[in-house]
């Protein structure tokens, strides 16, 4: 069953490829307002929070404080830190959630490991491993939802600048199913997230106390130092370039002397 999408704060430019290209109107709404609007706009079984096992736990806390008992899922890549697994279970018990733990397709993982071993990402990048262990199960799960909620923030990486509070998720929508994506924390900084965690006494992953800012799979995550961008804690052996698919016309107009 599909619900009507909520009032949008974005303009859909109508591009038909797999990338979300909405142009945000930058209307300031609090994370709680975005979250409440999202959870009220869809049947409870058709919208879910994506939980990474890190500071995006604040979304669960906010939803519970707003009086919802949200569906929550997490992607178990099979390579998470033991501390993260313990944290996932702590959150399940703390909020009395039926946490949906998504696993990758066993045969696909076996094929990858058989062909390239357990650490192929150090040699040819993390895309293939993340695709098998995260994106494929995520895509499968989202095909049964009308909307999902993420903890993505603008300040997490350059590719997240102008991240809207809500958008049609073109990456995972299909002809049969238009998927909405909500990013309640889009405008919040890491500092604001942590202020909330401390103020509200929200449980958090103990890895954060050891210098881990962004937490993902164990082989691909490391602690960072003061002043380093959180992205530096993930896939640090890869160059930040080589990801750009946009067409950037050069400005060839000469500057007058």
């Amino acid at each position, binding site marked *: 069953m599909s619900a009507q999408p909520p009032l949008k704060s974005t303009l859909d430019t109508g*591009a*038909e*490829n*797999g*990338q*979300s*290209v909405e142009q945000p109107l930058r209307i300031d709404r609090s994370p709680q307002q975005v979250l409440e609007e999202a959870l009220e706009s869809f049947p409870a079984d058709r919208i879910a929070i*994506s939980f*990474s096992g890190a500071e995006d736990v604040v979304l669960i806390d906010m939803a519970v404080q707003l009086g919802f008992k949200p569906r929550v899922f997490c*992607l178990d890549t099979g390579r998470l830190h033991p501390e993260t697994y313990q944290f996932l279970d702590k959150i399940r018990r703390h909020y009395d959630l039926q946490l949906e733990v998504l696993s990758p*397709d066993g045969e*696909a993982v076996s*094929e*990858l490991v058989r062909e390239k071993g357990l650490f192929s990402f150090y040699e040819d990048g*993390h*895309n*293939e491993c*993340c*695709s*098998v262990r*995260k*994106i*494929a199960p*995520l*895509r499968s799960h989202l095909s049964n939802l009308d909307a999902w909620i*993420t903890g*993505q923030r603008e300040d*997490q*990486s350059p*590719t*997240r600048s102008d*991240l809207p509070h809500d958008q049609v998720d073109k*990456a*995972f929508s299909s002809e049969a199913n238009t998927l909405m994506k909500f990013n309640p924390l889009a405008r919040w900084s890491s500092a604001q997230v942590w202020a909330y965690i401390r103020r509200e006494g929200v449980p958090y992953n103990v890895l954060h106390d050891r210098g881990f800012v*962004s937490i*993902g799979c164990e082989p691909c995550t490391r602690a960072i130092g003061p002043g380093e961008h959180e992205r530096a804690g*993930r*896939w640090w052996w890869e160059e930040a370039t*080589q*990801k*750009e*698919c*946009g*067409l*950037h*016309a*050069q400005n*060839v107009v000469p500057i007058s002397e």
Partner: protein
Amino acid sequence: MATHITFVKKILSDGNPCAKCADVEARLVDGGYLARIDETLIADERDNESPGMVLAHRLEVERAPFFVVRTPREDSTDTGTEDGSDEETVYTVFFKFLREVLEAPTSKSAEAAEILRDNPELDLL
């Protein structure tokens, strides 16, 4: 008249080939589909007048690689495109092009990999 397929690949502003374009081309070769491509154009970011950039501008495409599938209208005998006598469909998602145009099998893993390449912010989930 048969369908006409154009493949547009990019040269980066530093003169290097676009990695994804090279990957897509390699997959076309490996799959034996290159013969189905009627025309390959270069979108050179250093040259706004390069054929691929001109086509991208005309079709308002903002990413590369991409494919343009030109199909004649049933009531038309004209082979042109600029005058609107043919239908043009743009594909910026490779696996969608493979599946819908070349009718080639695609794997879930390959499709997932392309989704991640086109939406790099997903890797932090």
